[in-house]
């Protein structure tokens, strides 16, 4: 890295620090002793409360406990949905018959946002964990399926032709050509699916639950406790960010063979 570049990076960091500091100060003085301050806690109070909630419980759990609940819900439903979605997407993309049978249903269900299933899911599965799993499953499933499907459709026909000429059977083509060459697409789908699962678990917990990070913000609303809401939002943002970083890293490792690694 030459001098100019280092200089540029330093400038960037300084500018970033400046604007974040400006934002916090604006927030601090905007809420201190003003009318807004009656509704809105200051930044230091919120950040302090966020760290205090690591040990002090909000309702049944500490903040970390709530996050763990939400994460475990996402993890269970997301894994099931990924496996099901990749399987359906790839077979739909590769076998015309499977596509003809399932595509119409898929296209009918896809435009309905997972959140709109909440009332129906509660009727079917009651108020327990199953409802939340079902909603996250829906959120992840359609994204994963769509992308795996696009991936299987985008397989280079030359490769398939070459494999056929060399005498590969259908199963071999599917496993050694279609599957690997769809991996970048599948990963794009998994990424979208994970962030939409995270949003969905928050929504589901907001509508109905007694634990989880979504519950933290909604109970803050019911108690008119803005500090608690903002503590929850910091948690949601932080985990959302970490999940995105995690997925990007896994992706970069797994498909390093692909140029550009996108």
């Amino acid at each position, binding site marked *: 890295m030459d001098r100019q570049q280092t200089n540029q990076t330093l*400038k*960037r960091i300084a*500018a*970033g*620090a*400046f*604007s*974040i500091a400006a*934002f916090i100060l604006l927030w601090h003085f905007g809420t201190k002793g003003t009318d807004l301050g009656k*509704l*809105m806690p200051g930044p230091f109070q919120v950040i302090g409360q966020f760290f205090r909630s690591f040990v002090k419980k909000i309702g049944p759990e500490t903040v970390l406990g709530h996050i763990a609940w939400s994460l475990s819900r996402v993890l269970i439903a997301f894994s099931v949905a990924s496996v099901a979605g990749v399987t359906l997407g790839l077979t739909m993309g590769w076998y*015309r*018959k499977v*596509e*003809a*049978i*399932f*595509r*119409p*249903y898929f296209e*009918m*269900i896809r*435009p*309905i*946002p997972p*959140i*709109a*299933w*909440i*009332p*129906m899911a*509660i*009727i*079917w599965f009651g108020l327990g964990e199953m409802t939340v799993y079902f909603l996250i499953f829906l959120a992840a499933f359609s994204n994963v399926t769509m992308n795996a499907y696009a991936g299987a459709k985008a397989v280079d026909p030359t490769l398939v032709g070459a494999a056929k000429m060399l005498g590969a059977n259908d199963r071999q083509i599917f496993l050694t050509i279609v599957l690997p060459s769809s991996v970048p697409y599948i990963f794009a789908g998994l990424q979208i699916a994970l*962030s939409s699962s*995270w*949003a969905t678990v*928050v*929504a589901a917990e*907001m*509508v109905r639950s007694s634990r989880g990070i*979504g519950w933290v*913000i*909604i109970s*803050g*609303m019911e108690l*008119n406790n*803005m500090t608690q*809401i*903002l503590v*929850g*939002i910091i948690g*949601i*943002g*932080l985990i*959302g*960010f970490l999940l*995105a970083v995690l997925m990007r890293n896994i992706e970069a490792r797994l498909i390093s063979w692909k140029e550009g690694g996108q």
Partner: protein
Amino acid sequence: MKNEGKSRYLALSVLSLSVGIIAWWFFTDFLKTIPAIVMPGPVKVFQTFAKKLFDTTPDGATLLQHLQSSLTVALSGYAIGVLIGIPLGILMAWYNKLDMFIRPLFDLLRPIPGLAWIPVMIVLFGIGIFSKAMVIFLSVFVACVINSYSGIKQTKAVHLWVGQTFGASNFELLWRIAIPTSLPMLLTGLRVALGAAWTTLIAAELLASTRGVGFMIQQSRGLFRPDIIIVGMITIGGVGALLAKLITLLEKILLKGGRW
């Protein structure tokens, strides 16, 4: 030969759908193995749909009134989000200094799903239209900034050099080269944002409202009317798909052959 294959697959699709619908009808409306309180049949859903167009019971408004109220909120939040988000994304991508200062703040906001702001807005502004429009604004804003930003960043340096050689001013470079380059991404942003707006609105209506399609399905759950819930879900899905189609249409008009 190829055509024949296509129509065979189409027939298979039609067959698959009809089997599904007949099975649905058979177990619900006909045999009643699945009680209507768990899953109403297609006939019942259709009747409810027709009735709900004019009937205000049990939730105080007809389907179209609910829909109108939902669309008003969603589209007003969407419009503000687009009007602020897209110019900001373009400016951030074009002026490096602005990028340095605003980007860190934006990165703080970005990982928070729009619907997490619902409680904040409700506490600050109550459960009226304004708080919902604000929540939608936030989720639309983020999607618009991200996409217009990366659209502008895709501009090829060579194109800018050519512009400079011919003596274009900075503004002309932006207006004649960078913005046209960014149009496909920008329109993708518009579509993603529209989906986000619609989803967020439904979430807000489920949580706190007195009117709207989301409110209708939430109420119907309490009243054990799954037929209305399904009518509501179909409406939500249908309108969402229709809005997305409008943007696709806009893409077709604006991006003639994708030759930018």
